[in-house]
């Protein structure tokens, strides 16, 4: 479910922010954290049609980004890949939000 994936993504990013010592990556993670929070707020605000292809794509992209984040939590050298993956997932969720005219 998209809500569960967004929820996991937010938790993963929180943990990575607390772990990383790299200021640039931390800044980028904090921006992504706020974007994900905004997207989660949209989801909470409105029920989303789970049959939409954008919903499926956003859920899959977040699932992939969350897997990357789990790896990065153990090995911070993988953080850059996580940030890229999370950025793609955030774009997918934005596409979904645009589709259902929420933003």
């Amino acid at each position, binding site marked *: 479910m998209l*809500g*569960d994936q967004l*929820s996991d993504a937010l938790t993963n990013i929180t943990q990575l922010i607390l772990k990383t010592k790299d200021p640039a990556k931390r800044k980028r993670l904090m921006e992504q954290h*706020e974007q994900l*929070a905004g997207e989660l707020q949209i989801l*909470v605000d409105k029920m989303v049609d789970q049959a939409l292809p954008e919903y499926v794509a956003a859920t899959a992209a977040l699932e992939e980004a969350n897997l990357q984040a789990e790896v990065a939590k153990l090995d911070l050298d993988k953080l850059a890949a996580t940030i890229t993956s999370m950025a793609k997932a955030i774009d997918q969720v934005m596409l979904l939000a645009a589709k259902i005219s929420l*933003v």
Partner: protein
Amino acid sequence: MKRTALALGAACLLTAASLGCGLTARQKLVLADFSKSAATVGEATSGELKTFREKGIQANTQVIVLKGESPIPGLPQLGSLDRGYELSRVQPVIRAADALAAYGQTMAALVNDTQTSDIKKASTDLMQSLGQLPEVKAHLAAEQLDAFGTVIQEIGGIWVERKRKQAVLMLVDRFGPAVDRLCDRLIQDFSAGPTPAKGWVYLQLQLTTERLEVAVYDQFTASATYRDRQLALDTYLLTNDLRAHRDEVCARISEAAAAMKRANASLMRTIHEDQPSMEELKELSERAGTLQSALVILRHK
């Protein structure tokens, strides 16, 4: 409305003869247990939602104090400190919880040797709570609710065991399906996942808690003095408190509501028997107890 009440009353009186004497000891035990748990779960849930709103507004305020307003649309701003905890969003769930509590209190008032005034108050609260809920309004018209309330008060107020039995059975038969729908709402709204998927109350608390946690951490690591660190830590305690409520309470409310749904189904199925089933009641009683004890710890720490 008066005519509906009279018709219902007449129907109840006509069937009274077939009901024999009052409630059996086992029926009283089952109803007393159920009513106590329903009141506990309803009151605890209603109280927690009020706490969530209060703490959510505090957390939103602190995030703005620490980081300023967010550039992301939809997140809390100075003019919307209650974002995510708006009355329009929280109130319907509080009403659903209040209705469950009032259902339990009405049942308890009818089963126990309660004064007429207590029965009147409990059933009035019940009808008012139910009348405000869309889940109930879709199935019962306001006139019907008023009529049921009148019948319960009139029959329940008479100190005759047989008539009390009649009133309790009518309460279960008529409002059991509404209780089932209210339970569904609490199960979904408070779920901590994975089944059913995380509900809005859980997700909203998570969103608020994690934004505050990141803001506090940022402030703490940038603090150069004891005083600055102390200020950041004071805010961190709010993060901790919110997280504890989210992790310890949401799932317990959802699970208690699921147990109440099962117990309610069993009650509707077997309460007309002299020896109704008590199997599902045990789980409900345990869940209600666990919820209550968690709240005692969280509210007094």
